[in-house]
């Protein structure tokens, strides 16, 4: 019979905790949460200023120096607002929805390396974990749509579920290309393997993943579940006060998390000269986030059937072709220099996107959804 104390020790000090001590784990958890909150506040400020500049106006600049305190004022105000639960709402579902939407976003950050090995959990299936966890937020969104008892919310939630289900597939296929090139599912190993950033080795994969990520986290032009001009505020129409703040937080935290994932997978994560690694990660994350803001500012929203059409008619075939091409490259010439593949893949990506867009245009009819 095994002594009980050994089992207890296993719980306190399992081998997969960073540094093998529970206080390391606690410290990292706190760091991740604080990091995410600070990043979100920065992202909100950054987005509003950047969009202001693109829209020939200034953006917030009155609250604090350069308007830096604007997101904090927003946060304090929203948290102190009255919380309204509509009479027809399903109270429990309405209460739980923001929590369920919020948790998975935090989990994404657990597997993103800030430095070589500096992450909460170096899972050997890190990227699979992200794919699995990131779609849980949809459950929260659908709960919000259903529990609010509002028709606009329900429509927005249904759109979101349809979009996420479709966009998982091109997203995973795009990731598979990266996994084949680097030969690992662990985020840390993926970064370590990127002597050439994957955006060059997998240019098509980057485009597909960026588009699919935008659709999955509902950034414009795929923000159909919020759709200001159609569905007032979409799935969170009936949310106010702190619950709404959580959804607002989720929206930006998801964007930041996806930007971080993209910079880890395709932009060689924390690697870079001169600056400390964590700063490189933040810079790259904000660069990807800026791309998202840019797209949001210049694009009208697509329609739901066009959203589906894009996933199944355009992204899916391209992702499959990309996967095959990568597989052939990796299998046939495992020892060839990656720089050859860079050239080949960029040409292939350009040709495929061009052909795909021509073909896609011809098939842009009405699709019943």
């Amino acid at each position, binding site marked *: 019979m095994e002594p009980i104390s050994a089992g207890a020790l296993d719980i306190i000090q399992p081998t997969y905790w960073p540094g093998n001590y529970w206080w390391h784990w606690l410290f990292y958890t706190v760091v991740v949460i604080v990091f995410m909150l600070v990043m979100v506040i920065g992202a909100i400020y950054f987005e509003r200023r950047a969009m202001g500049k693109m829209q*020939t106006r200034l953006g917030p600049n009155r609250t604090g120096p350069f308007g830096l305190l604007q997101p904090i004022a927003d946060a304090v105000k929203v948290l102190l607002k009255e919380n309204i639960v509509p009479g027809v709402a399903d109270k429990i579902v309405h209460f739980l929805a923001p929590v369920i939407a919020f948790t998975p976003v935090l989990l994404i950050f657990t597997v993103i390396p800030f430095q070589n090995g500096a992450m909460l959990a170096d899972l050997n299936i890190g990227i699979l974990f992200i794919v699995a966890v990131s779609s849980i937020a949809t459950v929260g969104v659908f709960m919000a749509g259903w529990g609010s008892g509002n028709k606009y919310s329900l429509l927005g939630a249904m759109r979101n579920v349809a979009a996420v289900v479709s966009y998982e597939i091109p997203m995973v296929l795009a990731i598979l290309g990266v996994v084949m090139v680097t030969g690992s599912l662990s985020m840390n190993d993926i970064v370590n393997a990127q002597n050439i950033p994957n955006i060059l080795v997998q240019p098509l994969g980057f485009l597909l993943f960026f588009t699919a990520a935008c659709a999955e986290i509902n950034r414009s032009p795929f923000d159909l579940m919020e759709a200001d*001009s159609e569905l*007032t505020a979409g799935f969170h129409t009936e949310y106010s006060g702190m619950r709404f703040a959580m959804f607002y937080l989720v929206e930006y935290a998801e964007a930041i998390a996806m930007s971080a994932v993209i910079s880890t997978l395709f932009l060689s994560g924390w690697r870079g000269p001169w600056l400390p690694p964590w700063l490189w990660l933040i810079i790259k994350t904000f660069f990807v986030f800026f791309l998202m803001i840019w797209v949001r500012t210049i694009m009208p929203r697509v329609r739901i059937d*066009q959203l589906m059409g894009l996933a199944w008619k355009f992204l899916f075939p391209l992702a499959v072709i990309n996967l095959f091409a990568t597989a052939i490259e990796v299998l046939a010439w495992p020892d060839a220099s990656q720089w050859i593949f860079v050239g080949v893949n960029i040409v292939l990506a350009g040709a495929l996107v061009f052909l795909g867009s021509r073909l896609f245009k011809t098939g842009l009819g009405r699709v019943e959804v």
Partner: protein
Amino acid sequence: MTTTQELTLKTEPFILNIGPMHPSTHGVFRMRATLDGEVVTDIEPVFGYLHRGIEKLAEERTYTGIIPFTDRLDYLSPMSNNLGYCLAVEKLAGVKVPERGEYIRIITAELQRLANHCVAIGAMFNDAGAYFTPFLYMFRNREKIYDLFDMLCGQRVTYNYMRIGGVSQDLPEEFLPAVAKFLPQLKKFLDEYEFFVKQNEVFVARSKGVGILSKELAINCGISGPVARASGIKHDLRRDDPYSIYDRFEFDIPTAENGDCFDRFYVRVQEMRQSVRILEQAIKQVPDGPFRANVPQVIHPPAGESYAHIESPKGELGYYIVSDGSIAPYRFHIRPTSLINLGALRNMVRGWKVADLIFIFGSIDITMGEVDR
């Protein structure tokens, strides 16, 4: 054994109330939309949320006192409304407007058309879901037109500038040079804007072939203005029934064939170019002289009735006035362009998605002040 017949799902219509306070109903329009999933199967428009009773109020005002009401009808183009009303009263009373007054009217009306189309195009993009950017770029140019009007009459929206027999005050000295300076800027901006919009795949995908209005239906519904011209009806009152001095200017009437949302955008942009053309001719020809005919403040037109219509930015705007010889009109009726243009909305949106419903509605360009009066 189950057959296909038994497996068919029973569906219920999903009735969605859009409006009256909805971000993209251009005011307080309300639609009861019946949906099948995302597809709009039927809509019922509900009006009256801005019904201020202008036609009744006008019966207790003098003829000059009605001009402020017309400003607030279609608040995106008050100058055109003023012009139409003044023409109707002048027709009734037989007043001849001096040359300079006519030119000032044309210049202001065409500037107003530019300002209106700025908002129409920008708001249409907003309804398509673009996050404010195209709207704000259009607004930046609209501000410049507002400055010109501000210079003219000291008001930004409700000008109350035209009078029966002319305009209320003469052009300030710096007005015409300012217009001459503004027009090339606008032309350049329009080229740029159109280029970027036509390159935007998402916008083209959203607008091409969406919300088609056939020519026959457009005529049957009495639709006028850019919406009708986008459907291929080459009808423009400035050309077909020239009022004021429009017969002196050279301009084209842009039309399109398909009658979809893209064509409505395209026709509006082309119309802005034509307005610039008219303005370029007009500012060179403005003569000296009185800007207003010698008309008493309180006029008694003879008993009778008159109908004057103009090509307002939204379409045919008409005023039907019945006079009994007193200082106030006996009956004052406005032909509401926006209300009549909405007449085909139901035919245009059926079978399209909710997103298209909003977009098609935005592409018609209505103002609730004019719909409900």
